[in-house]
């Protein structure tokens, strides 16, 4: 591991020691964040898969009914029946903070007071298969909205986890070893300087003694 390009001075040593401490603390915090995010994410992903399987199944059902309705009724009739929907859905999004990831929470509102009020046609001229198709779609609607919420949350969390993981790795494998090496390098350099000063002093003392008293140690 490369030693940072710094002057081997005491000031630099104190700075580096402080930086190392911060890096260690940051690393610990980020690692905790990553672990917690991962735990929540895995739960969410399982939920996401379950919801998706259910929604896909429901849509397949609805399509089957729709296909039968189409074969029984003329296209224009179906168009007329579904042309003016009575129901309209709107969603309110509140933002929630989960481990510093901003995730959405959906709240659904229906225009008509009864949320089962979705048949936009009289029953006289339409096939019951059309009713079935609309019914099976409306059955999975809450799941569809939950799916949208969960899937978005998963996507947002995934990118945050990726970022956090990279940070943890950078700290663990690059920054912290680099600081440690540099601190070791500076300490050794300073010790070396001290030793050389001591020997120089001893030598000077010897020389002075020799000069004053003709004394050899």
């Amino acid at each position, binding site marked *: 591991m490369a030693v940072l390009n710094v002057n081997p001075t005491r000031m630099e040593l104190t700075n580096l020691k402080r930086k190392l401490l911060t890096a260690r603390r940051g690393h610990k915090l980020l690692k905790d964040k990553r672990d917690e995010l*991962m735990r929540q*994410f*895995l739960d969410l*992903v*399982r939920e*996401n*898969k379950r919801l*998706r399987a259910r*929604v*896909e199944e429901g*849509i*397949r059902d*609805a*399509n089957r009914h*729709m*296909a039968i309705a*189409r074969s029984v009724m003329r296209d224009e009739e*179906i168009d007329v029946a*579904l042309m003016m*929907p009575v*129901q*309209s*859905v*709107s*969603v*309110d*999004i509140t*933002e929630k903070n989960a481990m510093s990831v*901003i995730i*959405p929470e*959906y709240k659904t*509102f*229906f*225009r008509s007071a009864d949320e089962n009020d*979705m*048949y*936009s046609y009289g029953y006289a001229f339409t096939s019951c298969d059309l009713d079935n*198709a*609309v019914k099976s*779609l*409306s059955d999975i*609607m809450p799941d*569809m*909205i939950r*799916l*949208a*919420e969960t*899937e*978005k949350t*998963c*996507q*947002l*969390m*995934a*990118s945050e*986890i*990726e970022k956090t*993981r990279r940070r943890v790795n950078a700290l663990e494998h690059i920054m912290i070893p680099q600081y440690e090496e540099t601190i070791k390098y500076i300490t050794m350099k300073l010790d070396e300087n001290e030793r050389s000063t001591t020997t120089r002093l001893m030598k000077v003392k010897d020389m002075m003694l020799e000069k004053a008293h003709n004394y050899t140690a």
Partner: protein
Amino acid sequence: MYKIAVMGDRDSIYGFAALGFEIFPVDSVEQARKNLKTFADGEYAAVYITEAVASGLSAELEFFREKMNPAIIPIPGITGNTGIGMKNVSKSVEQAVGSDIIS
């Protein structure tokens, strides 16, 4: 207040109109791409796109991945399930964990 949109070929999405979703019938990928600009304005909380259309727009949909809204959700159309939706979920897992551990 946000709306919910459904985009895809007409036969696949017509039923959703009855539920109160806004429908955007498209015949071609070009048309769908134009509609995406409408969705990007932030009026929609969720946009369900049929897998057939979504597969032609994968590069554009990548842009929405990290945005708060809309949530772009692929759904199977009348032609059947191609598995793009599940693949998307696996992609999230792969991005987060490094490999798809839940399959």
